[in-house]
């Protein structure tokens, strides 16, 4: 048991990174050899030479993923508030329904609705891709926001109201600062799900919306493993960089508003 687990941990989680690092610089690596026979910077040279299309596909993926985050926010903000703030008949059924989009295979709803989307002009467009990605991933945002709302006592809102704040002011000075960590953790998951999706982008985008996974897949199919490895490592960098950026922006925001990131808030950001 213990040994199998150790082997599994290494094989599943450490070895892939190591392999990508080695594979990226491997030159000749013919069949039974366990290590490359020569080393080369070919993959790096390829990436430098093709930095235009690579950056464009990265930019496109980042853009539609961020748009999908915004759309999923629209789908989940109000429902999360209702679910966190009140009880009603059939609540758990509604919660299950709102979780279900994560379970329905993309093929069913995207391919099933594809003729309709063609007719409505949703397909082959940036906005259509973002919309479909948001539809399939918004429950992640919903759960994060629901937990966030549940952690803010209603009294904060009431106090703000008593002090004269109304509508948007209550939102911007009570809810937004408190909800930011939950919102960002939901956004991270939705972003990652959208960023790594291949099929939906390729189906709805119809080749007109470029994507990083769409750039990577032909290289994998052509068995160009050095370049694929390098591109996969770049793929890992994007979420890491966004994460670092987010953390920095968040802490600056709280500093400027003179709010320490409390234990609870900090914990939520990290998780």
């Amino acid at each position, binding site marked *: *048991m213990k040994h199998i*687990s150790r082997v*599994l*941990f290494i094989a*599943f*989680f450490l070895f*892939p990174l190591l*392999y990508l690092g080695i594979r990226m610089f491997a030159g000749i690596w013919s*069949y*039974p050899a*366990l290590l490359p026979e020569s080393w080369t910077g070919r993959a790096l040279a390829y990436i430098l030479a093709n930095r235009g299309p690579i950056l464009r596909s990265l930019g496109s993926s980042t853009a539609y993923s961020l748009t999908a985050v915004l759309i999923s926010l629209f*789908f989940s903000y*109000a*429902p*999360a508030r*209702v*679910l*966190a*703030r*009140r009880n009603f008949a059939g609540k*758990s*059924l509604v*919660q*299950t*329904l*709102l979780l*279900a*989009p*994560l*379970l*329905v*295979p*993309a*093929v*069913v709803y995207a*391919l*099933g*609705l594809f*003729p309709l989307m063609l007719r409505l002009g949703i397909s082959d467009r940036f906005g259509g891709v973002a919309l479909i990605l948001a*539809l399939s991933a918004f429950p992640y945002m*919903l*759960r994060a926001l629901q*937990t966030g709302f*549940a952690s803010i006592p*209603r*009294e904060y809102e*009431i*106090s703000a*109201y008593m002090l004269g704040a109304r509508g948007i002011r209550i939102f911007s000075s009570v809810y937004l600062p408190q909800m930011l960590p939950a919102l960002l953790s939901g956004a991270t998951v939705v972003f990652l799900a959208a960023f*790594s*999706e*291949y099929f939906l982008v390729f*189906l709805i985008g119809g080749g007109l919306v470029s994507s990083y*996974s769409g750039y*990577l897949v032909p290289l*994998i199919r052509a*068995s160009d*493993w050095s370049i*694929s490895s390098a591109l*996969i490592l770049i793929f890992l960098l994007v979420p890491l960089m966004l994460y670092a950026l987010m953390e920095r922006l968040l802490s600056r925001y709280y500093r400027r508003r003179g709010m320490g990131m409390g234990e609870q808030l900090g914990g939520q950001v990290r998780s």
Partner: protein
Amino acid sequence: MSSATDPGMRRYSPADAGAFRPPVPPGLRREPSLWGLLPGIAAALVVVFGGGLYALAGLLNSEAPQAALTMLLSDPVVRASLGFSVRVAAISSISSILLGVMLALWLWKQPPAFPGYLYTLPLIFPHVVAAFFVIAWFSRSGLMSGLLYQLGIIQSLDGFPVLVFDNNGFGVILAYIYKETAFVVLLMLAAIRKIDSRLISTARMLGAGRTKRFFSVILPETGATLAVAWIIAFLYSFGAFDIPFLTGSASRPMASVAAYRLFFEGTLADRPRALALLVLIWLITMLFLIIFALMQQFPPRLLRRLNLFDGYASKRFASATRPADDSERKRK
């Protein structure tokens, strides 16, 4: 916030001692309106029912609806790809559960300094990357074959079984196991960490060995989470496209790839077949969704009837599968 108790009269937890909880002032809504659920419900309905119903409507509107419906049940291509998908999904989800539970138990016992968070790596990797690893490691000229050759277990690359692009779906299963094991670890680790440690130490003091502790403390406490994880893993490997598209056999496609091909690469005469396949994938998904919903709705009764978990576990079921709920917590 239940309307039965007057908000001004509520008792306080010790943490709020001395604080005054104001009543909701007139002019501020006491509770958010139920209309707020609308955007979420609309989006969920589109995803859950949209594609399936639209495909069904397309099937019924075809020239010969009768023939289309019999096709739903008897077309050999449809049946074969569907059966194959169910098999692949069952094997990969059950293996992921077993491996995931094992790994989660092991990670749980590691010291805090251990880089256990590395297990999230396959969750960050897209599915196409999991497919890449499987092709690079398990194809006949891949790394694993080379290793066996060096160890003298096989004499040439012909001795290595065809594991990728094969008709048995091994490559697809391996890729799914890679992705889903990490997912099971994620849910399982969270569930194990919620177990009251006194339960485990009591069991140990009473002389329960490792196996006994697992089956009488850990499994009852986490079984509900595992059941949910299994449904999610099963449905994922049943219906997803990326991995079978990249590592699956060309001559024996899984249902999702077959539907895609019939849709885009087939002739117009193949269209009803594509729709029939989509409808069946949808119906199987709905079946699992209903089980999922029933488990969320009536956990104690259902689980007790199945006699899988004892009462203590089912009481905890709600907290393991639902996000923290303000109103429920306050009611206690």
